[in-house]
Structure formats: C-alpha cells, structure tokens
C-alpha cells in the first residue's frame, strides 16, 4: 500500500495540521502571487518572501471542464472521467488563485459565493502513491 504524497513539493504545506497554499509576497510593494516565485511582476523587484495564503475566499469566476483533458499533461482518471469544476477564488487582500472545484454542478456555483480550501486525492502514481492536490469547495455556511 502506497502512501500519500503532494502533487508538487513547495506548492502547499499539507500534510501540516492546518494546511495552506504557499504563495509569495513582495517585500517592496506587497504584491502576492501563487505559486511562490522569485521576482515581482508588479514592481519588478526581486525581493520576495514566502507567504502562506488564506484558506477562505470568494468565487471570482468558474467553468466546468466537460471533456477529458489530453494526457499527458493530465494525470487524473480518464477511464471514469467525470466533468469537474474549475474556478478562480479571490483570497481577500491577497491574490486570485485558480483551482479545481469539488463540485461540477452549475446550479451549485455562483460568482461571489464563499469557498474553502480542501486537500484531496487526484490519482495514484506509478509507485502506488496516492497523489494529493488542492481544490476549493462551497463553504458550509454561505
């Protein structure tokens, strides 16, 4: 039985207790980006630091991926493909982050609704490890 591994090192702090996405923040102008990178595209400084991002935001826009993506690069299940939601979540005062959504029901998605960060398995890799990625789901209380 394999173990659980993150889809990419450095993208988020899972499996920490209160896992967050890791972005970067510019020490000069305060611009926040995701994933973390050196160099600030807003003010062109190279003075940035890591920043753990908020885990609740609002749905800025969304779509539903209705057909199986080409593989590669897609690594998810294609044999039993089910449409999945994709959206941008606006993390207040920080950045808008693109993510898979846990629902693909167009009637359950509304621009402006509150969304919470989740971590869930996406696929099993060649070594039998369960690969964990991040997604956002509609918040319980709207």
């Amino acid at each position, binding site marked *: 039985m394999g173990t659980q591994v993150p*889809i*990419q090192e450095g*993208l988020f702090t899972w499996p920490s207790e209160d896992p967050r996405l890791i*972005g970067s923040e510019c020490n000069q102008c305060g*611009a*926040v*980006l*995701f*994933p973390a990178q050196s160099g600030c*595209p*807003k003010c062109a400084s190279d003075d940035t630091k890591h920043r753990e991002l908020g885990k609740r935001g609002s749905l*800025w*826009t*969304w*779509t*539903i*991926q*209705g*057909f199986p*993506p*080409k593989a*590669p*690069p*897609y*690594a*998810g299940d294609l044999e039993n493909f089910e449409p*999945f939601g*994709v*959206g*941008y979540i*606006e*993390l207040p*005062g*920080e*950045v*808008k*982050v*693109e*993510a*898979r959504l846990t629902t693909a029901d*167009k009637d359950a998605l509304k*621009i402006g609704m509150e969304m919470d960060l989740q971590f869930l398995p*996406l*696929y099993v890799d060649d070594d039998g490890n369960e*690969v964990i*990625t991040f997604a956002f789901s509609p918040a319980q209380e709207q």
Partner: protein
Amino acid sequence: MSTPEVAIVGIGMHPFGRTPERSGQEQGVYAVRKALADAGIEWKDVQFAFGGSAAAGAADTMVSKLGLTGLQFINVANGCATGGSALFSAYNTIASGAYDLGIAIGYDKHERGAFRVNTKAGGLGDWYGKNGLALTTQFFGMKINRYMQQHDISHSSLAKVSAKAFRNAEHNENAWRRQPIPEEQILESDMLSYPLTKFMFCSPAEGGVALLLARADKAHKYTDTPIYLNAAAVRSRRWGSFEVMSPWIAIDDGVGPTVDASKAAFEIAGMGPEDIDLAQLQDTEAGAEIMHLAENGFCEHGEQERMMQQGETEIGGRFPVNTDGGCLANGEPVGASGLRQVYENVLQLRGQAGKRQVPNDPKVAYTHVYGAPGISGVTILSR
C-alpha cells in the same frame, strides 16, 4: 490621419481546414506563390521575410522550395500572435527604411482535438497540467462566464456569434466549416466548458497566408489597388490583466493587452473606433468576439447584447465583424490566423470579397489577435 508608410501589395492564402496531402510548410509555400502572383513579382524580388508556425517547423526552411536567393529570413514564434508579429516586424522593417519590399508568412498544421499545452514551455509547473488546469478552453469559459453576469450577456447572443460565423463562411471558398448551423443546434451541442458549447469554439486547423509589403510610395509598381497599413501594434499583458494559463491573477483588476494594443494602434494611425468600417476580431470562441468588441473600443461593455440581438455585426449590419467566418469557421492554424484576418480585410477594401463583400465601399478595416500568455496584435488598414 497620419500618412501611411507601408502598403500591402500582394496577398496569398492556402485554404484553411484539413489538407492531409500537404505539410504545413507546403501550405505556406503555396500561399507565398499566390501572393507573388497577386503582385506580379518573383521570389527573387523579395528582399526580406518574417515567417512563423507554431507546430509545423521553422519557416526559413521554405527557401529550399521557394529558391535560395540569400534574402534576410527571420523566424517568428509568438503563440497565437505569430502571424501578427511577422506582419508587425515586416511593417517596421519597411517603415525604418531598411528595405523596400518584403513578405510576412504564417502557416500551421496541428493535431486534432484541443491544443495540447506544453506547461514547461509556458513556464508552468507540472502540477498545473496534472491537475487538469492546462486547457485554454477553461480560460475562455471562465472569462465569458464572469462577463455575462457582469454585463447581462445572454446565451442566445453567444449562439448568434457562432451562427453568423458559419453563415459568413458559406461564401468563403478558403474557409473550413461552411455549413450554416442553426442557433438552437449551437446551444444544444456538447457543453465543453460552461457556458461554451462545441459549436462556440474554434478548432486547431491547418492553413497558410502570405502578405507582400512594400514602401507606400512604391506600391503602385506592384498593384493598382494598394492597401495601406496605417498601424500595426503588439502588446503583452500588464499587472491586473486576466489571461489564459494563469495559476493566479492579481488581486487588483486591470485591463488586458487588447485594450493597450488597440489604443496604441489608433494613436499610430491617428484614428478612432468611429473611423473603422469593419473588423476581424479574435474569436477563439463566441464569447471572445463579444468581449473583444468592447476591449477594442467599438462599444461600451454590455452594449453587445443589443448589437448581437439586432444583427449589427452582420455583413449588412452597422459594423460587420469577422466577415470571412473568423476563427470559428476557419479554425486556428496558430501561425497563420492573424494574417488571415489581414488577408480578408485586404479583399474587403479592394472590393474583391464576392458574395460576402461589405456594402458601401468600406475604406478602413481593423484586425485583432489575442493569444497566450497574454498578447494582442492590432492592425489598421485603409485604401
């Protein structure tokens, strides 16, 4: 209006769609020969070339078929703006005074299905593609979904854009999809990326276009109907824009590169949107044509709903858009797409567009391309 320094004196095109018997490069060569014949010149007369394809090899290898004349040939690679960038470069080469006569070439040949995105080349981590986020179609769905809610654009207006494209293409022998499709069928086709259905998206395709450019004061040597290039501008994204293939967007909302390229082109030409008689606007999908109408300055945000419902962008309408069927009906051979728009405008301004000719003698025409990772190219042509 500023005095144009560059003219288009010859145009050539290989039909778009699927041509299994010809490679992408052969389609490019075909387009070049057509353009040479149109201007009544030979390949040896051409002093320089800018050419590009995204998926069909290096353009400069064409000289092995066209003739080893030793000309300056520069390859261009700039995503969906490859053709536009070749034209921009050729335009500047002539405007600078370096040469009198040159050619801009774009061609391509893509595999079937949605574009396969190379996340490494795009500077994105592997996780992005593995997650199922590396699809250009998702961006288009998300951009128009938000826009429709903000500006009250209906699903019916999206369908009208597609229906118009296929209707216009019916009269374009170089187009790929020439069968009109009713709006209901467009709305009911497979939902690929909400709110966009199968018939609201263009597909990767094949084709080639070549445009011969000359100094404006020498244009009459080659043609009785020179079409002047009043402006060509290319811009990339700035902070706050919302672009295709973005794991993140800035918290601040800003304008995209289309707004910037459009403003720059109008400034160079000394014109405004009110001077334009017809336009070819990037319509990777139906929503793009709607949003690009406003981003290029041809209407206010939200006005498109009325424009679509009243048929204002039809060939016989107040402001005809995508008269050759656009990307929706021609498909998108990435390297050639922007030059196809210019080719169509040259035909329209010459009065040679046949059954799809815009009435009342159009004098000024506009093109706009948009592509990853956030670039736009605009041209303004006049006769």
